[in-house]
């Protein structure tokens, strides 16, 4: 990608966002997800909290269908791709794949709290917190 735009979502509204870190100054957009807000009856104070976070970031703010708005923003900036950061919410993957039908999407992982994989070999036991913490605690304290 030579001329990407950045898609900023609600799990990464700070300077630790790896897409913002890797591409400072590139056009970036956040979209208020109208369907989600309506479906979950999200209250105004939550939207305002997000808005205040967005005002302190170099990001254009839109509302509507997230994938459509990100693609429209990319066209306005003649972008050849979209860069974003990984998210846990399963809705992220739905939106990412909708964008990816039109433009390549690169997903960057933020710095982890604990260096343990999410899945596969070496992933922690999540059946109870105590099992997870037995594996995670010594690794977290390594950087102390």
């Amino acid at each position: 990608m030579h001329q990407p735009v950045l898609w900023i979502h609600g799990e990464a509204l700070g300077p630790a966002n790896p897409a913002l870190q890797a591409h400072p100054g590139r056009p970036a957009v956040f979209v208020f997800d109208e369907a989600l807000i309506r479906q979950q009856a999200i209250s105004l104070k939550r939207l305002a909290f997000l808005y205040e976070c967005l005002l302190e970031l170099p990001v254009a703010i839109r509302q509507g269908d997230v994938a459509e708005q990100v693609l429209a923003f990319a066209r306005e900036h003649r972008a050849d791709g979209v860069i974003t950061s990984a998210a846990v919410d399963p809705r992220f993957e739905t939106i990412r794949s909708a964008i990816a039908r039109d433009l390549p999407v690169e997903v960057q992982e933020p710095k982890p709290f604990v260096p343990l994989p999410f899945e596969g070999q070496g992933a922690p036991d999540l059946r109870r917190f105590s099992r997870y913490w037995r594996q995670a605690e010594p690794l977290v304290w390594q950087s102390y």
Partner: protein
Amino acid sequence: MVSPPPALGGVPLPWAEADGDLPRRFSSRDALETELRRRFPEASGGLSPIRGGRLAAEQRLAAVQPARYGRSRNFLDGAVTRLSPYIRHGVLSLAEVRDVVFQTLRAGGGREAGEKLINELGWRDFWQRLWRRLGDAIWDDQEPLKTGHSPASYAAELPAAIATAGTGLACIDAFAGELVQTGWLHNHARMWLAAYVVHWRRVRWQAGARWFLQHLLDGDPASNNLSWQWVASSFSHKPYVFNRANLERYSGGRLCHGCDAAASGSCPFDASYEALQQQLFASATAEPVRSSWNGRPRRRTNPASARHP
């Protein structure tokens, strides 16, 4: 000298703004509220006194006192961090918070003073990992309930009196009011409120979880739903309940002063754990209740030794 951007000025964008963009400059917070009402007419309520943004987050982070947090976090007026809304939206990353806490501990206090706080950051990471694994199944019971009641016996919807802070119970109404007004509740208050909804009113945890997500500035289905499931007993070995003595202790008694139910002897929480167990759960099958919300089993008082504590 670099000065912070005006409260609602918005940092400048290095590219030209377009017609489709939402405004990034407001004369006041009221103007932001007016704009949001116009754009999202279905969104209920007003603004929270809690402000979003990195500046507010950094102020809170600088004020964190790990040792005091460890000692007092269970109390409503304890030294809790109130970082959760900023962490939930990535304004602060867990790794950043961890590093700042480590710096604080190195400057004084040492590792032991910060173990509880780091442990709580671990809870956040744990919930996120589970959500990543479960996806939308986070809305399903992870295990069968241990209350002795069938899932069908729980109401599907939240009673209106709870959502409108009109139960007549001073504690419950105060928590509901604070949730709706501010979008934030102390974790202990969340647990009490959730236990009341699920066990005393016998409402499905999902109804309570949806209500919390409408309002909590830090709401996400990971911490929220799994904590509701922990209270309900579909993600723990036993249901969580509390009683009046527990609530009075951790709230400094202030909620019970002036509560009509407390004055008239109709407080539904004014009972021993044994009595609540009998009253709330089908005793033939239910596990003993859990009355500690931070994962440690409650030390049961043996009646024979109660005189010699």
